[in-house]
């Protein structure tokens, strides 16, 4: 029961074998159920396919089956004795950038599929860019369909060289290449006998062994107060507990903390859970913190260390991925903003540029951001937010925008700190 959790995101279309790869992982790790397989086999036969179409496993909605497309993020689960895996499976076309961003936002690993026959495509570049924009710490490039290029080492090495060159323009911390065939299972779960020249691990053992613990930010203490627990009973009348999920850092009783926005300093008295007190708390634990001094603290406030605090800002620079089809992001318009547990309103001051996600070029002078477009935007919020650079802290660097007239979630934002403005993805000006 000590297995840990690994979340990975896949993106791609039916053509590049993504669904087959997922089906293969589930099947070979014995995570596919026989009634699911029977249903897929039956539908494949009914449609006249000669092979079992494993993509039917992930296409869950009627519209998807009717149109033979994937329109949304599907979550899949499987476990080995070492780990439990959550797959966020997203379609790969341009119009689904929104879904890819959603899937990548919580992923430890991004799987990018490349068809060995075609080499790098616009789509694989786009997937890699989005994974790096969303700060996914590990990227595995699966060079698929190796059976169709005679298991050629030189084809694999060519793709590896081209992708590695491209990745220097992105922020990819850990990049791995695996030659495989999802259809035949080579290097998916079992090591391939057809590619003795490859000395790396098959995909599943790589996923099982990938070290993700050090990806978590354990340095910067950030505890967004989510909910104030105040039992109304007699014996607990003076109890005030601050419930929340540790965003980053390690909290211990006795630690000095600063409370934002007030700036008061106090000491952590206890860290509690329903199972008893803890000696320390770290991400992603959900705990209750009590403090030595009585300070007025409410939801949306944040605990940090006196010598290590987030920036307190009302002017935000951020990369925005626009997710709404009904209206574009427009300068001058005001949106609801949700950042950690804090909500405010934000007006769009300007759009610095849009990024062409296929070429990574900056396009300046744009008047808005439409569905699936990504760009750099300046916002002014109605109250200060406690922020870190997204690339150093995904929890305190990410926010969403909500359209106040429709209540829809219309954008994901990733904060760029002024002092780190040069740390934005190194895109080229057109």
């Amino acid at each position, binding site marked *: 029961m000590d297995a840990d959790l690994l979340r990975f995101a896949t993106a791609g279309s039916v053509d590049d074998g993504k669904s087959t790869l997922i089906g293969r992982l589930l099947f070979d790790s014995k995570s596919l*159920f026989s009634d699911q397989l029977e249903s897929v086999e039956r539908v494949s036969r009914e449609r006249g396919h000669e092979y079992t179409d494993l993509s039917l496993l992930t296409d869950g909605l009627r519209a998807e089956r009717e149109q033979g497309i994937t329109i949304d993020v599907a979550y899949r689960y499987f476990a080995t004795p070492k780990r439990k895996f959550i797959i966020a499976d997203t379609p790969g076309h341009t119009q689904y950038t929104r879904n890819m961003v959603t899937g990548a936002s919580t992923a430890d690993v991004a799987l990018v599929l490349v068809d060995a026959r075609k080499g790098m495509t616009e789509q694989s570049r786009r997937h890699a860019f989005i994974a790096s924009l969303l700060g996914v710490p590990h990227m595995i490039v699966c060079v698929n369909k190796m059976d169709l290029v005679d298991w050629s080492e030189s084809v694999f090495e060519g793709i590896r060289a081209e992708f590695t060159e491209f990745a220097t323009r992105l922020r990819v911390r850990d990049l791995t290449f695996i030659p495989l065939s999802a259809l035949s299972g080579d290097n998916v779960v079992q090591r391939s006998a057809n590619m003795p020249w490859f000395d790396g691990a098959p995909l599943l053992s790589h996923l099982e062994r990938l070290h993700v613990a050090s990806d978590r930010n354990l340095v910067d203490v950030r505890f967004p107060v989510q909910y104030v627990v105040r039992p109304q009973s007699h014996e607990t009348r003076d109890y005030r507990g601050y419930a929340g*999920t540790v965003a980053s850092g390690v909290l211990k009783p006795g630690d000095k903390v600063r409370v934002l926005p007030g700036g008061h300093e106090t000491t952590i008295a206890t860290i509690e859970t*329903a199972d008893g007190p803890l000696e320390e708390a770290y991400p992603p*634990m959900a705990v209750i913190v009590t403090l030595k001094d009585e300070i007025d603290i409410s939801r949306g406030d944040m605990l940090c260390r006196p010598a290590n605090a987030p920036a307190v800002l009302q002017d935000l620079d951020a990369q925005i991925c626009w997710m709404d089809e009904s209206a574009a992001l427009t300068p001058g318009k005001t949106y609801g903003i949700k950042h950690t547990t804090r909500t405010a309103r934000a007006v769009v001051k300007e759009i610095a540029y849009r990024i062409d996600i296929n070429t990574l070029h900056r396009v300046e002078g744009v008047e808005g951001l439409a569905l699936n477009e990504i760009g750099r935007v300046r916002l002014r919020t109605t109250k200060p937010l406690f922020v870190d650079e997204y690339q150093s802290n995904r929890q305190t660097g990410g926010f*969403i925008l909500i359209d106040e007239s429709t*209540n829809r979630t219309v954008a994901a934002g990733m904060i760029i700190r002024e002092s780190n403005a040069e740390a934005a993805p190194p895109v080229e000006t057109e």
Partner: protein
Amino acid sequence: MKKSHVISQLAALEAESIHIFREVAAEMERPCLLFSGGKDSIVMLHIARKAFAPAPIPFPVMHVDTGLNFAEVLQLRDRWVDQLGLRLVVASVEEAITRGLVKEEPNGSRNRIQTPVLLEAAAREKFDALFGGGRRDEEKARAKERVFSFRDEFGQWDPKNQRPEIWNLYNGKVFPGESIRVFPLSNWTELDIWSYIESEAIEIPSLYLASEREVVLRDGMLYAVNEFVALKSGERSELRSVRYRTMGDANLTAAVESTADTVAKVVAEIAAVRVTERGATRGDDKVSEAAMEDRKKEGYF
């Protein structure tokens, strides 16, 4: 384990669920937890208690009572509610049939007609957030549903118009009459649920554990003979060691052959099992490829 600051996957799932409970309690006006006394809703309630302790759970629970429940499940439901000091809202399908809100379906399933009963009770109580124990591993339509699932004023789910969920930032904003269904166990699998019941020593109905029961083989499934399942002519019952994997209506929930008479044995059995729980035991889910999707669009959980 501790030195490396990594928590187990069960602890991570529990933390995610606690986060979801607190988020709803903080942002929504009138949440309510759907509680049937089945294993998933029991786990949900257990985690809700942990999310707010030492304070009590700050919302009531509701049971849509189809009138076809196993008696033991109802008893356990009431015991949980009493122990936690919660308000229980019962929305009765039986009573809704009597006053003509819904009509009994020819196949005897009350699965579909419980939806209007649920919606009516939720509207009467003005609930704007309803927690459900649905998991994404259960079924293909569920696999694509959000943790915060927006429903319009008719409780309908529109799979093509879902709010993107990025990081752990959930959007619970609704206009009056609209609501959010919240699934805190979205990322749990059946095996996770059982492993958690074992590690937390949570009390569940004994029907989940194997025992010699009088069963009849019908449409390839084993149904326990009880007050809701009578033998039809030509049918013969027999004694077999069976247990239940799900706790639906007593007339349509099948048992599976099993010798797992302890939670630990169930965990071992589930880890090796090759059929999904709904595929194995739910006559009401076998209607069509899209049965769940269609019911959800009508306001089902």
